[in-house]
């Protein structure tokens, strides 16, 4: 991954200086047509055997775990979960926060990296956005069903009940309902609108028939005229600008569920930024966990390059370090505040009955990403995969530590308990993992997994002035060279 250097053209007097060139986002000088062929090929060709080998077990696990687990829950009652003692939030809310956090990387890639003009996002944004949608689907199951009598879940919607009593709009739990449903809706709009030009590509390649009809309906008659692109680009920019504060708000609101309570260990102001950093951290790990195999299976190495993986590994390192800072700061504040209940809450995290969860969280989230300081580790896909798996596990434990450790040691020693997940809870969580994988595999099978239009846009020849240095003499590398010559002349 050595940076290619080349010598700038001699535009003025002075020595020739080597200029660092940007690494190419698409390797091997691929053409527009090659990009179309390769991405559409993923869904037009027969799926490889490995697809079926992954899909069938995932689908079965999803059916048994989610449908079976929920059937037992609904037909028997919420007591089939392990929350029959004083720990009233267990795996359910842990899993909810875990899945909703996974989604955040998708929105970060599609919105925040778009606003900051990080063009490398184009190769991974579609798959990451799909991941967001599916993760939020998995997340939604838990709060909807943990209410116990799920047929009363409509109490969450802003409509009055039979006694004309409305929801408490001051409650963080209701904020959460609004935040998560808005997040899902906006992510879906963003994902779908971003896919329209690519669905048109598939429509235009299909032979007349059902396939052409269905993709045609979803492409809505897209023609790719600039009078459409102009509005489309504005819509994309607006959605990115709306999603950016949204994604920061969603996990902040999730953290309010805890932070606005008076429970020691939850009642802290550090929670919103700490949760958002953790969500991005866990989300990027999940993006890499599923994109590295997908890239290999479908031969997408020229579009999802080592540069992309390197960038994501660096983001994991950064956010992992922020999360580590938050963990240490929590401990420090518990000590420095002099609040004895706060101090006790953290003492029990470290040496209480759930010390093993705290150790798992610390080693997976704080220590394991530190190997990404070394370039060799970011370039070795086995190491990257191993770290990402650690982070996936670690982020689940983070939520477990925050929720269960705290509730197992509240104010009154009489309330202290030890919570164990019941088989039905474990079944449901494993089921959502299967559901997530099955949905993602279906996405790979039926929808373009890379943003075709945007990837083409990053090619050098996509710039209408790339062969035309007369109109734009100070373009890109040439500008840099001219500037360096000026510096030389002054010196």
């Amino acid at each position: 991954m050595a940076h290619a250097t080349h010598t700038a053209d001699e535009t003025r007097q002075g020595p020739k200086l080597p200029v660092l060139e940007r690494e190419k986002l698409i390797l091997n000088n691929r053409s527009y047509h090659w990009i179309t062929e390769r991405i559409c090929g993923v869904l037009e060709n027969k799926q490889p055997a490995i697809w079926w080998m992954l899909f069938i077990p995932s689908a079965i696990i999803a059916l048994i775990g989610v449908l079976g687990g929920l059937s037992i829950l609904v037909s028997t009652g919420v007591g089939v979960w392990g929350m029959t003692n004083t720990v009233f939030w267990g795996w359910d809310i842990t899993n909810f926060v875990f899945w909703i956090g996974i989604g955040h990387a998708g929105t970060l890639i599609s919105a925040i990296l778009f606003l900051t003009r990080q063009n490398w996002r184009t190769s991974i944004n579609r798959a990451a956005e799909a991941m967001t949608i599916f993760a939020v689907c998995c997340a939604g199951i838990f709060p909807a069903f943990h209410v116990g009598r799920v047929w009363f879940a409509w109490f969450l919607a802003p409509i009055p009940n039979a006694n004309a009593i409305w929801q408490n709009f001051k409650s963080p739990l209701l904020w959460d309902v609004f935040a998560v449903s808005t997040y899902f809706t906006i992510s879906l709009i963003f994902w779908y609108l971003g896919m329209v030009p690519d669905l048109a590509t598939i429509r235009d390649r299909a032979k007349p028939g059902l396939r052409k009809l269905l993709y045609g309906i979803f492409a809505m008659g897209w023609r790719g005229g600039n009078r459409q692109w102009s509005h489309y680009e504005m819509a994309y920019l607006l959605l990115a600008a709306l999603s950016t504060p949204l994604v920061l708000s969603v996990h902040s609101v999730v953290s309010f569920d805890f932070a606005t309570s008076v429970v020691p260990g939850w009642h802290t102001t550090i929670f919103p930024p700490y949760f958002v950093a953790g969500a991005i951290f866990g989300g990027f790990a999940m993006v890499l966990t599923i994109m590295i195999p997908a890239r290999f299976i479908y031969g997408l190495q020229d579009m999802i390059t080592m540069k992309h993986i390197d960038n994501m590994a660096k983001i994991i390192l950064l956010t992992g370090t922020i999360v580590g800072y938050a963990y240490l700061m929590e401990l420090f504040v518990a000590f420095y505040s002099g609040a004895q209940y706060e101090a006790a809450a953290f003492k029990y995290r470290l040496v209480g009955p759930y010390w093993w969860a705290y150790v798992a969280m610390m080693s997976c989230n704080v220590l394991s990403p530190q190997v990404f300081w070394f370039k060799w580790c970011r370039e070795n896909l086995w190491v990257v995969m191993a770290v990402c798996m650690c982070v996936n596990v670690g982020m689940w434990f983070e939520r477990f530590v925050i929720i269960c450790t705290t509730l197992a040691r509240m104010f009154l020693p009489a309330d202290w308990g030890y919570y164990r997940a019941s088989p039905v809870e474990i079944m449901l969580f494993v089921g959502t993992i299967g559901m997530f994988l099955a949905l993602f595999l279906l996405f790979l099978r039926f929808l373009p997994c890379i943003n075709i239009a945007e990837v083409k846009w990053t090619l050098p020849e996509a710039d209408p002035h790339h062969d035309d240095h007369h109109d734009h003499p100070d373009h890109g590398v040439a500008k840099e060279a001219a500037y360096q010559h000026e510096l030389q002349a002054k010196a």
Partner: protein
Amino acid sequence: MSTTRKRVYGYLAEFKSASALYKAAEKVRDAGFRKWDCYSPYPIHGLDKAMGMKRSILPWFVFFGGTTGTATAFVLATLTQTHVWDFIPWLAKTAESYPTVVQGKPTNIFTVPAFFPIMFELTILFSGFTVLFGVLALMKLPRLNHPLFASKQFHRATDDGFFIAVEARDAKFSPEGTRSFLEEIGGASIELVEEEDS
């Protein structure tokens, strides 16, 4: 051997690259055409200017959509959880609300900070829907068919083709003149696109 009458939609010309399309677009613009468009597989930077197009008005729609969202959330929350609307008797009577007095929060306007999260979320939600429906309206989509889809080469516009289509309803359009004009500015495989007139 079609028996239906055909109506001319316009000329479709292909250009070899994004930069060729850009330069041609400037010439079509300068020639004074109005009803025409450039087709490309991805958005081309600066083409709006080359075509003499104005900035999209979508942000204005979204501004009002978003404001509606903020107002909706504010009214919903205050009407059901406070007594601030009591100065409009019929409204308070219609809503017939029983504020939930918890968390030591008052039932007057000073409880509004607790409504900010929902006001924010509904602002984003309404804005998002306005983006979706606004952009579809501005793009005149969805539509199930278009005369250009009858062209044999137009399918490449979503793959690797760069096209300009000049419509027959343009005041400056003429069957011979426009064809030679498109040839002149570098257009290749020029095609007369016709739609079936029922």
